């Protein structure tokens, strides 16, 4: 019950934000360096997610005001890149969701090998 209430609290905070394992992966990646602006391709490489999976997640996070976006200051001869960073609300949500995901993940091995 505590776990359900806990997840419910994360849910309420997120306004129907989908809690998929991929979202948890992306958020964990952002948490690895909270203050850094991140590029899409770097997140994709580090999480192993394809652009078609990653960008809808980023778009949803931005829609819920959890992610801020910015264009890189242009260097000569190179077009600016789009960068992403979690907002305060995003960081709070990410910490909660990632910790829930980790708790669930550490609980999982107990069911392995049961042969169901």
């Amino acid at each position, binding site marked *: 019950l505590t776990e359900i209430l806990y997840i419910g609290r994360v849910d309420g*905070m*997120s*306004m*129907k934000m989908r809690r998929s394992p991929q979202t948890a992966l992306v958020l964990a990646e952002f948490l690895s360096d909270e203050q850094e602006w991140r*590029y*899409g*391709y770097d997140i*994709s490489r580090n999480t192993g997610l*394809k*652009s*078609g*999976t990653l*960008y*809808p997640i*980023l*778009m949803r996070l931005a*829609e*819920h*005001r*959890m992610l801020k*976006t910015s264009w890189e200051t242009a260097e000569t001869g190179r*077009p*600016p*890149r*789009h960068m992403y960073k979690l907002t305060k*609300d995003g960081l709070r*949500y990410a910490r909660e969701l990632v910790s829930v995901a980790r708790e669930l993940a550490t609980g999982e091995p107990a069911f392995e090998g049961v042969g169901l």
Partner: protein
Amino acid sequence: MTLVRRLALGISSRVVRWASPGCKEWAEGLEREAAVIESDWAALRWSIGSTRVLLDRREAPMTSLDDAYAIAQKFFEKRKKENSYFFWTCVVLSALSVALFCVPTNFIGRIGDGLVSGGLLFSLYRMHVYRSFVVRHPSGLKDRVANYRSELQRYIKFNYGWASLLNVALTLSGLLVISYVYSVQISGAFTIADYASDNSFYIAISFPIALMIYMNLHERQRQIAELDALLAERDGVSAL
């Protein structure tokens, strides 16, 4: 530049061109990333993945209450025109279906005509009630945006509520019965499978139409969530 790289950049630039206003910035972000990926094949895979953005059809984002108000004005103008158009279309179709109902035909055909007439008359009544509602136009910007939000909710309730479902069910079932009667008259007795294959075109186009209707609902709900966040920001309270 290799052919693969050229293909990757070509896909990315088309994604930017065809992306909906609300996804343009993201499509551009994807395009820029494709340009910096060193491996040509990885860039191509990235570009192909970026086409996913095209499935997401959304209006330009509302970043401030002023934006929201500008979008609200367009919404009210568009609704006014569309409501009037749909209302008069309903008037004509209702009159036509009632006239058809009066034409002597067989019993099943009559049931079909009755269902269509009932559905259209019900729809006419609902349109009349919807149009009769006096929309307030308050003076403050925040109140105007809140008013837009409640109007969006009214729009969703009107188009996606139970009454709307009943409306569609009545009219569609009536149309199915009528088309079945006509098919039997033309081809003689035949099975449901024959009927489905004869009308496969209509069945096929009903899926994209249903998808579009669902996407419209999703977009309106997304806008309401966006407005909530804007209004909460304005109040100085985080909505998340």
